[in-house]
């Protein structure tokens, strides 16, 4: 054979391997409304940027007739490429090859690309579409999962790790996405659970569909396991690209700077927040009134909506926003919103993204269910992550900041660098009604008209204490600012914090209230 023949032979082998499970299996994949693994990679990466490795890897299982089976690429495609010109490593499980099941060599391909990603300090994207462990490979398959989880943990906080669930992801397999930074799901396509409906039925006798048990909506709305919900694979890929535009490539870098743009004129910051602290508004409109081009990229939009987290830019710099949402449950903190906020703060801190906190909350949600679900332990996560974060921390109190909620939401006492308050801010140990009822209990009870006296005392307390000036007089607030000055103050705070150097005591790691 001359060189030309050898190249033709290579091409022939490539073509066969690239077909994965073959035409019939591909047809079945498409009929389920899913793209093939290869098409997914090509849709996500810059055109012609994907370079594949380990295409000719073969499994070495011998039992149960496996020695007679040839599985192209062993059910997973791995490689590197670029997104918006920046380097990316990626793997995509190929459901057309024995259901994308994970065997030893399949896992070996994944861990190899993970090691590359960590060494080259670039993000890792994993597209999950797999029936789970390859039963014929027994403990070798379990070993493969373990090796992946270990690397997920080592890479955590060093390189961004993105999991895209585009098919089933069940049993132990779900723990790799759970260990990564961001989980993307697509309606009707993503399915995640530890034990599926069949097992639940046989063990517990309870009947439920895959969709109701662990579909995309369940994880986006109920469990909080997913961070981004899309209606189609294409929309999901756009979301991934948008997320990547906001975050740095590794923990030694800063997020890429964008061209600064003013917020859109339609978001008038003075017209969004009602003065009455008991009236709702959408805090996302306040964020949109503050960020470049009014472009706010929300994370976990559907879960624990009483708190809002996400990315935006101020003068071209990426900022992580944390806000109470008075529109939902009056913006209280509870078990889920505490988890949501605390984890996001740790992400921003790990990846050098300044945190801007917008405060407007009546406190933690009272209730037997909340107490019994451990709101103490969960709520403590917010205190922990704010205290531990050393990135620039800027807090703006819009209206209510009562009690424990005031302390938790990026207060001065947790070492926020800048704390500003609007003139509408009410910083107090509790709301005026509650406070007046306690402090003036005797006067109210003994008054000829207790209701009139109560109203008078509430008014008196509101005027004296429900304002930002008491806190400002102690230096807990750095400046009381008008709403329209907010963007300017945030931009300046970020500008002067550029060389911030705040350390923590020497330690291996803390013991956060997980």
């Amino acid at each position, binding site marked *: 054979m001359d060189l030309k023949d050898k190249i033709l032979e290579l091409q022939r082998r490539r073509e066969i391997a690239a077909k994965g499970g073959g035409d019939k299996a591909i047809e079945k994949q498409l009929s389920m409304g899913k793209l093939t693994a290869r098409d997914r990679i090509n849709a996500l990466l810059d055109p012609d940027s994907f370079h594949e490795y380990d295409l000719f890897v073969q499994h070495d299982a011998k039992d149960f007739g496996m020695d007679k089976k040839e599985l192209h690429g062993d059910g997973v495609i791995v490689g590197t490429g670029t997104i918006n010109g920046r380097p990316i490593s990626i793997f995509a499980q190929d459901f057309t090859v024995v259901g994308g099941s994970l065997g030893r060599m399949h896992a070996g391909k994944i861990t190899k690309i993970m090691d590359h990603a960590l060494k080259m300090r670039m993000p890792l994207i994993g597209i999950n579409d797999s029936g789970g462990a390859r039963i014929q490979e027994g403990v070798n398959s379990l070993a493969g999962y373990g090796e992946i989880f270990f690397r997920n943990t080592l890479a955590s906080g060093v390189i961004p790790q993105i999991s895209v669930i585009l098919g089933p992801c069940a049993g132990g397999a779900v723990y790799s996405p759970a260990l990564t930074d961001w989980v993307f799901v697509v309606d009707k396509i993503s399915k995640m659970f530890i034990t599926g409906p069949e097992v639940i039925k046989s*063990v*517990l*006798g*309870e009947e439920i569909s895959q969709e109701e048990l662990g579909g995309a909506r369940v994880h986006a*709305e*109920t469990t909080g396991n997913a961070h981004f919900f899309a209606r189609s694979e294409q929309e999901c890929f756009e979301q991934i690209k948008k997320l990547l535009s906001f975050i740095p490539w590794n923990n030694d870098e800063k997020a890429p700077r964008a061209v600064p743009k003013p917020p859109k004129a*339609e*978001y008038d910051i003075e*017209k*969004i927040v*009602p003065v009455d602290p*008991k*009236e*709702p*508004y*959408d805090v996302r*409109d306040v964020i949109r009134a503050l960020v470049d081009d009014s472009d706010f990229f929300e994370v976990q939009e559907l879960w624990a*909506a*009483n708190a809002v987290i996400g990315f935006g830019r101020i003068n071209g710099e990426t900022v992580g926003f944390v806000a109470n949402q*008075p*529109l*939902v*449950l*009056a*913006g*209280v903190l509870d078990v*889920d919103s505490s988890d949501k906020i605390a984890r996001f703060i740790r992400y921003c801190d790990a990846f050098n993204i300044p945190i801007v906190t917008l405060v407007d909350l*009546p*406190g933690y*949600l*009272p*209730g*037997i*269910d909340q107490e*019994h679900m451990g709101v103490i332990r969960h709520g403590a996560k917010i205190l922990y992550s704010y205290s531990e974060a050393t990135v620039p921390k800027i807090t703006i109190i819009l209206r209510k900041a009562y009690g424990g909620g005031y302390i938790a939401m990026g207060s001065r006492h947790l070492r926020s660098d800048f704390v500003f308050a609007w003139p509408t801010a009410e910083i107090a140990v*509790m*709301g*005026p*009604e*509650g406070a007046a*009822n306690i402090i003036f209990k005797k006067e109210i009870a003994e008054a000829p008209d207790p209701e009139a006296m109560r109203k008078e005392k509430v008014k008196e307390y509101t005027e004296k204490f429900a304002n930002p000036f008491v806190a400002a007089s102690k230096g807990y607030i750095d400046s009381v600012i008008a709403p329209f000055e907010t963007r300017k103050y945030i931009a300046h705070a970020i500008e002067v914090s550029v060389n911030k150097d705040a350390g923590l005591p020497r330690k291996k790691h803390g013991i956060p209230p997980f």
Partner: protein
Amino acid sequence: MSNTGDKKEFNVIRLWDADYHTLLTKKYLNRKPYVPRDEKKILSFMPGTIQKIMVQEGQQVKRGDALLILESMKMMNRVRAHADGIVKHIYVKPGESIPKNHPMIELE
């Protein structure tokens, strides 16, 4: 944009002594009311199948006596009396599959 004009679409949530206008979540609306624990009723701690019942109604039992076997997660769990008493009522039959927190036996 901001939908603060119309108060009618909002619910009221009372927190401490103030009424807040806001939207409620599915999870909040579906939260389970608290049921105080009845010490006399022995509930299933896990879903499972009743394999065997070792006592009869009216029988005197001592603390620690095995009452029944609940098979759950491939484990034969012996459910024991947590106090001396008389078996007042048996709610389950052998072979019956029951969910979590299902009453199995009542003592008095």
